[in-house]
């Protein structure tokens, strides 16, 4: 055991164990204070943005510190997890949040959305997510989830003057709270069956024998709630509309961070509480995964608006991730974690680029608008092309490695049929990713100089550059990321029952 290890049984230890969340909370307050003070024009918004970045950076440092201090065995019955799964999940969230902040900086000014509370909301959502991934207790899951949701509802409707944005917020809110009801009801039933809200202890309760009806119902209701959050078919309907109506950086944030938090929390609940009951939830995830892959990809094929197309694409990717979770094995979990990284990095860059290319919420941006981009803005075109290929899962990009990993995990747990469906739907997805590349590279621009004002802001440029480099680097040598995702999966799978590990 590490000599300076955190002991969660002491108040200090618990505080240290929540250091990133604590740090970020304090930072949010600071930013809020700054915002209250300086609430004028674009400069203030910018200041809030950079302050948020610093906040995220400090949080990341704190995360790195506790990751180094984490004990091998934190003990039974704690509220917070101190495992690699949490650290990796938190790191992903911080990465995506930072990317979203960078993408927002120029965007908000351009769209005249310069109320600096935006960043506060974003950071608050991040705090919620951090709690989602660190929770070892259903109470904490709910708290984190609601903190995140409430903040994101507001973010989605942040462009108040825009009817689409407001409608997006309303739909998200109504269906979101509806789904939260299901989740909570599921939690209640689980609690009723297990007698505790601590995940590990629930898992211990359910480790032997078949689940009682109440627990099964609890599992079902919770699955409904989580599947809503990750936008799995048939709980997906909100996603296209909300992604479409929300300001583009918010869409990016939802597609990456919110989705990651949802999947990580879902994985934790499923593996820790129901790790011994994989056969109970496995077929459901399989069916939802297939539905998401198929529907997401085929409907994306019919979309004109690129932003809406990416929304359907994100549904399809949720399907791939569900397939990875379907395996119920550490390998699948690792694949899911790695894929979240790949998909998130790619999506951050994609939405940042879409945000730079469109105007007024990017709802009208379609392929004809990016025609000839390769000659007007070669670097942007190259970046978007790399992102498209990564989303398509083309070798040389992280998207390929991610898909490869998911395929491997599927095949290793006898999911050849699911792997086949996955690749076939990927072929369909080529039908909408490739036309983007075709428009940029193979069609002439609609008019000369059409791209003169379509440049990425400096901060977004940084985000995109880092993302694209990551896409390519991880596409060739993903070893470091693989090590992390493996560690994360292993740490969570230690709580798996013997039944599941035998899969």
């Amino acid at each position, binding site marked *: 055991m590490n000599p300076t290890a955190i002991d969660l049984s002491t108040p200090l230890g618990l505080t240290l164990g929540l250091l990133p969340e604590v740090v970020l909370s304090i930072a949010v307050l600071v930013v809020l204070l700054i915002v209250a003070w300086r609430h004028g024009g674009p400069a203030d918004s910018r200041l809030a943005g950079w302050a948020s970045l610093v906040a995220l950076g400090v949080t990341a440092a704190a995360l790195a510190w506790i990751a180094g201090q984490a004990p091998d065995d934190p003990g039974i019955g704690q509220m917070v997890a101190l495992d690699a799964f949490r650290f990796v999940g938190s790191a992903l969230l911080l990465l995506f949040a930072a990317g979203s902040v960078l993408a927002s900086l120029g965007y908000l000014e351009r769209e005249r959305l310069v109320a600096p509370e935006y960043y506060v909301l974003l950071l608050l959502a991040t705090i919620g997510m951090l709690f989602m991934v660190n929770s070892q207790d259903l109470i904490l899951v709910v*708290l984190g989830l609601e903190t995140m949701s409430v903040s994101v509802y*507001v973010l989605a409707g942040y462009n108040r003057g825009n009817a689409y944005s407001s409608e997006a917020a309303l739909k998200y809110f109504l269906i979101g*709270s509806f789904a939260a009801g299901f989740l909570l009801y599921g939690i209640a039933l689980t609690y009723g069956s297990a007698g505790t809200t601590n995940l590990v202890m629930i898992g211990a309760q359910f480790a032997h024998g078949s689940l009682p009806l109440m627990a099964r119902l609890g599992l079902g209701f919770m699955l409904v709630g989580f599947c809503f959050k990750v936008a799995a078919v048939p709980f997906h309907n909100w996603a296209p509309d909300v992604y479409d109506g929300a300001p583009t950086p918010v869409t990016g944030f939802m597609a990456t961070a919110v989705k990651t938090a949802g999947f990580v929390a879902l994985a934790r609940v499923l593996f820790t509480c129901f790790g011994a009951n994989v056969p109970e939830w496995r077929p459901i995830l399989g069916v939802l995964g297939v539905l998401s892959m198929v529907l997401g990809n085929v409907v994306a094929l019919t979309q004109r608006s690129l932003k809406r197309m990416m929304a359907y694409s994100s549904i399809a990717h949720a399907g791939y991730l569900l397939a990875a979770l379907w395996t119920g094995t550490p390998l699948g979990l690792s694949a899911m974690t790695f894929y979240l990284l790949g998909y998130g990095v790619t999506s951050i860059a994609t939405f940042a680029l879409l945000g730079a290319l469109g105007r007024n919420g990017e709802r009208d941006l379609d392929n004809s608008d990016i025609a000839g981009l390769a000659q007007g803005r070669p670097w942007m075109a190259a970046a978007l092309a790399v992102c498209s290929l990564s989303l398509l899962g083309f070798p040389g990009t992280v998207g390929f490695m991610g898909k490869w990993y998911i395929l491997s995990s599927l095949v290793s747990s006898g999911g050849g049929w699911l792997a086949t469906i996955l690749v076939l739907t990927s072929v369909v997805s080529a039908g909408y990713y490739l036309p983007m590349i075709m428009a940029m590279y193979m069609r002439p621009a609609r008019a000369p100089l059409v791209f003169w004002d379509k440049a990425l802001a400096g901060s977004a440029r940084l985000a995109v550059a880092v993302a694209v480099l990551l896409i390519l680097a991880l596409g060739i040598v993903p070893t470091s990321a693989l090590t992390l995702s493996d560690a994360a999966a292993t740490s969570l799978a230690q709580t798996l029952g013997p039944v599941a590990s035998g899969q």
Partner: protein
Amino acid sequence: MLLGPALALSALLFAIGVTGVLVRRNAIVIYMCVELMLNAVNLSFVALSTAHGISGQVFVFFVMTVAAAEAAVGLAIILAIFRHHKSVNLSNINLLKG
């Protein structure tokens, strides 16, 4: 014990809430139905805590808090919509579709 009837009542409440969400078109009413669902959850927690101890009751407080926060944000969003549509009837609100 009243656990069984209480749970049944909560299930009924939950179902009524769901049905309300399903059949009503007014955003405010729908949100009230959602609140009904949450209260059904609360009822369950309270009932179950008689069997399992305090944590269920603690949970209820959290749920109420969350519901309050949601209500604040939700009503603000509904207001924003009202400003655009002069209505909160969801049958009219479908700019985003397809």
